[in-house]
């Protein structure tokens, strides 16, 4: 289907189901139950899942295929956000021009940074991208204040021209982002017994764009261009002596992944029209590296899983506080309850990065291929068990993608 083979089509369908049914899947617990805090089916959180999914899918086209590890991709995300907000200020509140511009501007910016950084490979390339991103971050924070509004961040005001829209609505407030009139914040709530499911227009726009982005990445992976990128990772020397110029291949991959990042940034601003320099900081660049590796670099579905995994646990772990812990462990004797809470305390709330760090180390050590490898091992183990029960010969395990 759509020019994909069976296996890839089923991957696309799985991701499509996950994305479109997310409001149900992420809200398994009734609203009033004690487990409701593990629900994640809220518009802003779901939007973040798919937006970071796009970011990671794009990053994987560069890192997963060519092996070039960029530590500066957040710069493109930030540039995308700024571009989108400027469109909302100057043109109007429709998200389409904003998203288009953010992709274009991020692509041009990536062309510039990639052109310089790709003169080196390995660690030097990583350092160059990191340096560029930090430079962009600092510029956005200080020198470029007229464009970025510095520390405060770029926001909409009632004085913005918005030549194709209105500066202020009839009741004197700032207009909201929309898709040809459909407001991004509009949410339809569906109550089923004790459950409440939320369907948000903005989320569904992001999810559809994410699916398109995922589909495009499958096509790229399976194309001659994708094969050349894997060849770059495998042996550049052989490529050069085979008559292939590796530079434009890596640059094209860099620009494409930069455009994905810009798209993610543009969507972020479309959901919540503001942009700040902190989106370009190196921690944000590091996060997408973690997502890709955690999910499985070089696999199709890995980055999506990694992004969802990190954003989910970030949200859940950081929401748990000592009070919540005390209610969980109230069945224990007083002294023990305090001790247990004391031990868990550093891993939750603001300390959730500690948990992330440990999870990341465990995955890298025991599952170098990320969550995807974990899934394949479970599948292999199940099929071996099944075939043993049936007395048949063990089925072949799937080779890594």
């Amino acid at each position, binding site marked *: 289907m759509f020019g994909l083979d069976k296996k890839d089509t089923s991957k696309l369908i799985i991701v499509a189901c996950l994305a479109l049914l997310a409001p149900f899947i992420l809200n398994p617990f009734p609203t009033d139950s004690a487990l409701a805090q593990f629900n994640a089916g809220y518009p802003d959180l779901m939007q973040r899942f798919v937006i970071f999914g796009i970011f990671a899918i794009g990053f994987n086209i560069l890192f997963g295929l060519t092996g070039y590890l960029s530590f500066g991709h957040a710069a493109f995300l930030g540039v995308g956000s700024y571009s989108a907000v400027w469109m909302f200020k100057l043109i109007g509140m429709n998200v389409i021009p904003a998203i288009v511009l953010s992709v274009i501007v991020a692509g041009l910016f990536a062309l510039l940074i990639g052109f310089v950084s790709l003169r080196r490979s390995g660690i030097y390339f990583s350092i160059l991208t990191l340096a560029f991103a930090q430079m962009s971050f600092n510029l956005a924070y200080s020198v470029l204040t007229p464009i970025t509004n510095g520390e405060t961040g770029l926001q909409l005001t009632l004085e913005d021209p918005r030549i194709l829209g209105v500066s202020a609505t009839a009741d004197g407030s700032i207009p909201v982002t929309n898709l040809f009139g459909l407001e991004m914040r509009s949410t339809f709530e569906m109550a089923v017994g004790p459950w409440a499911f939320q369907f948000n227009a903005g989320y569904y726009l992001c999810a559809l764009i994410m699916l398109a982005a995922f589909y495009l990445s499958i096509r790229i992976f399976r194309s001659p261009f994708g094969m050349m990128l894997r060849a770059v990772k495998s042996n550049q020397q052989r490529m050069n002596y*085979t*008559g292939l110029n590796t530079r434009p291949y890596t640059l094209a991959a860099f620009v494409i992944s930069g455009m994905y990042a810009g798209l993610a940034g543009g969507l972020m601003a479309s959901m919540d029209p503001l942009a700040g320099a902190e989106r370009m900081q190196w921690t944000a660049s590091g996060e997408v590296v973690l997502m890709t590796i955690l999910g499985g670099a070089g696999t199709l579905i890995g980055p999506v899983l990694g992004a969802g995994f990190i954003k989910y646990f970030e949200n859940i772990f950081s929401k748990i506080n000592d009070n919540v812990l005390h209610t969980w462990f109230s069945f224990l004797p007083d002294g023990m309850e305090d001790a247990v809470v004391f031990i868990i305390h550093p891993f939750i709330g603001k300390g959730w990065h500690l948990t992330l760090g440990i999870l990341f180390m465990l995955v890298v050590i025991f599952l170098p291929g990320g969550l995807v490898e974990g899934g394949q091992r479970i599948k292999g183990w199940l099929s071996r068990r099944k075939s043993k029960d049936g007395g048949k010969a063990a089925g072949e395990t799937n080779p890594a993608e």
Partner: protein
Amino acid sequence: MGILEVKDVGKRFGGLQALSNVNLSVQENSVHAIIGPNGAGKSTLLNCLVGKLIPDTGSVMFDGQSVLGRAPYEINQMGISRVFQTPEIFGDLTVLENMMIPCFAKRDGAFELNALSSVLRQKDILQKAEHMLEEMNMADKRHMHAAAMSRGDKRRLEIGMCLSQEPRLLLLDEPTAGMARADTNNTIDLLKQISDERDITIAIIEHDMHVVFSLANRITVLAQGTPLVEDDPQNIRGNPKVREAYLGESA
């Protein structure tokens, strides 16, 4: 006028004159061997031909065009393919994919942004790669990871990859170094077959006299960065200067 003309090439590494006054003419459709003791400058010379090194002096002409100052990929596109001392292949890719890549390079040039069509739709490339694998007797290994093959098979694959580009000149740097006798003989047979059946010129650097005398119809002896003699194999065997500089050492 040979297909490859090397004139007065010199190359210096710091205080070491690795090559000086190298003159060499490789005739079309011949198998030309370059031999010489360790450190004679054979690999340095080859690197000057393929764009990895730029000589300090002299000129290198391929088919009437200078190769100097061109990048390795440009020189390859001119029709020169190179086989490395240790096989250089795409270890993470399958054998079939390894074979497809040079076919793409031949068809599409040094760069082509072909990001949306599926590899499986490239029927002409697939056909050519499959055909070449069959010719190399490795069609049964097509879905294997190239890195998992034996050294002899990797060498075979590398030679096949070069041939799939239909180069006019094939350069080999000690293609049998570190190989077992059986693998060496297979490689000799393969190269013989290639030079007999194809319109191709082969220049080979080799230490193994057995390989040299089974293949070459012209031999250049390099010693201390300069060609000592260039002659037919039977004359090289009897040449006292060569015996002294090279064969005497190994005898």
